[in-house]
């Protein structure tokens, strides 16, 4: 694939365990997951379900994002993480490049729509319309592109929990086709009553801290946040001095074609996504150093994902962990947040812990890593994102053999 490489130059994250990347890493290091009683979201389920909220109100986020405080939290989180990502890439003035923003989300401006709806339901002549104008998913990306000064290519992808991973795939293709010089790709989602109530009706929310890949797991915790990586193509990389984190060497998406929300028992979609991403990266199972699991903590996901991993890796499963045991499931943002963690694992030799693990799953022969470590030899990392609609994506990040 030489000559068609995609370089990862930096990343940004805001989520329930940190307002930026160094804070997130500190939380992993100190084994501090972010589940708490909800503080910012108002819900009748406040005392039933822990959530992993970003620990900042909208006014604080707006000040950091350079946006007005009345717009959707989904856009505020996005702008904060995208700015951190851009700055970490050390590319200078964004206006000097053809830049693409590919940002995924699933809730759009739902948080503001909910505020509108409360008043509107009482009286259909009331409610502030400015609360609903940015409801749709695409409009969140437009708001953030405007504040970042991005004019060349703006796209929104909405494929449930794999949205961000698909945004990164799409971004890589924009680079390979020389449509832009630089891509900021990932996703964002804010916590809303809509999603909380919805996952509650599906009865897959855990009332305690979630326990991914643990035999006693009973569901997921919802989180919120945003995560983006900054990528450039080989051609652009050669023209300037860059300080890459790693390369994006493989990606694939497959459809499980089984059920609207449940994964197939054999995890065929998961298997195809992982297998094809590794094939594209030109690596074998033995070359894989770490897998950042989708690992939501539901009975169904972890069994399907685990079964697919066992089928692909046999008796030689590499270290694995689900960082959702810290961040909760951030839905449309999860693939972006976890891509940053995965790329950073290659750069720094990190292995992230899986919190709340104590019981080996009966159906599996492997178990997740439970402690944080650094300085490991990490050549290839896979990040899994498997979503509703059978939408399964895997990304592979690799060390540049020449550095």
């Amino acid at each position: 694939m030489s000559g068609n490489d995609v370089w990862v130059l930096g990343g940004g994250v805001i989520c329930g365990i940190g307002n930026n990347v160094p804070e997130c890493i500190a939380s992993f290091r100190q084994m501090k997951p972010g589940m708490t009683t909800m503080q910012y979201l108002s819900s009748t389920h406040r005392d039933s379900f822990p959530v992993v909220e970003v620990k900042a109100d909208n006014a604080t986020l707006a000040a950091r994002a350079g946006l007005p405080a009345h717009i959707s939290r989904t856009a505020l989180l996005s702008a904060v993480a995208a700015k951190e990502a851009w700055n970490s890439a050390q590319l200078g003035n964004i206006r000097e490049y053809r830049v693409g923003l590919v940002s995924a989300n699933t809730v759009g401006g739902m948080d503001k729509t909910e505020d509108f709806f409360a008043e509107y339901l009482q009286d259909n002549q009331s409610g502030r319309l400015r609360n609903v104008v940015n409801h749709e998913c695409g409009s969140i990306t437009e708001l953030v592109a405007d504040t970042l000064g991005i004019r060349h290519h703006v796209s929104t992808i909405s494929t449930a929990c794999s949205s961000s991973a698909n945004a990164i795939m799409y971004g890589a293709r924009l680079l390979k086709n020389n449509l832009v010089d630089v891509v900021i790709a990932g996703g964002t989602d804010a916590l809303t009553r809509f999603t909380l109530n919805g996952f509650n009706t599906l009865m897959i929310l855990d009332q305690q801290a979630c326990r991914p890949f643990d035999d006693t797991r009973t569901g997921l915790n919802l989180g919120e946040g945003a995560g983006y990586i900054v990528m450039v193509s080989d051609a652009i990389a050669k023209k300037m001095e860059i300080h890459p984190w790693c390369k994006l060497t493989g990606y694939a998406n497959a459809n499980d074609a089984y059920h609207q929300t449940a994964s197939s028992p054999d995890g065929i979609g998961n298997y195809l996504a992982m297998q094809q991403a590794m094939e594209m990266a030109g690596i074998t199972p033995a070359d894989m150093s770490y897998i950042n699991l989708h690992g939501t903590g539901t009975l169904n996901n972890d069994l399907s994902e685990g079964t697919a991993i066992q089928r692909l890796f046999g008796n030689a499963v590499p270290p694995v962990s689900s960082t959702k045991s810290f961040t909760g499931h951030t839905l449309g943002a999860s693939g972006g947040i976890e891509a940053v963690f995965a790329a950073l694992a290659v750069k720094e030799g990190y292995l992230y812990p899986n919190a709340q693990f104590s019981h080996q799953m009966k159906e599996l022969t492997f178990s997740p890593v439970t402690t944080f470590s650094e300085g490991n030899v990490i050549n290839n990392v896979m990040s899994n994102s498997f979503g509703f609609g059978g939408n399964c994506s895997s990304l592979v990040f690799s060390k540049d053999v020449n550095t």
Partner: protein
Amino acid sequence: MDSTGLNITGSVVIRNNRIYRNNVVIWETPEDQPLPDFLRAAYDHFSGQYPKFHKMDHLSKLGWLAAEVLLQHRPFTGYAPEQVGLILANRSASLDTDLRYFDSIKEFPSPALFVYTLANIVMGEISIRHGFKGENAFFTSDAYDEQLLMDYTKQLLAEGAVSAVLCGWIEVMGSGYEVILHQIEK
């Protein structure tokens, strides 16, 4: 091949209660027929035999129907399941269903409605129906950017990610809807 450089082997358009295949009206109902009735009548006309249809939201029903109209006429044959992809887009994502779900919350939130509050579920339904396991992407944007979807499809075919694609626009919001779906083969 046409001017897009793609081998488009079929197209379906559904609007104003008319179904066009390859630019010819193949079935229609009165323009003022409500969308749910139109969808049910179309289901009965184009096969039935798929009871799960009735549980779908309007977005999925439209996608399912468009795929049915294309693939009954010209099935994808000779492609492995993982070689058939779906690239779709629309304006309102799943908003039509989001609002219906909001409405159900007043009494009992409906799990069956909630599962359709994501735009890409329509791709899942088409994949389940036809056994497609290839790449899926769903874009949301203000207007139908056919060029973008065609270019993207071209890229997928070129890099070997898939060998056949259903791509197009499936929009529904309240009583307004529009479907444009193309069948593209290597």
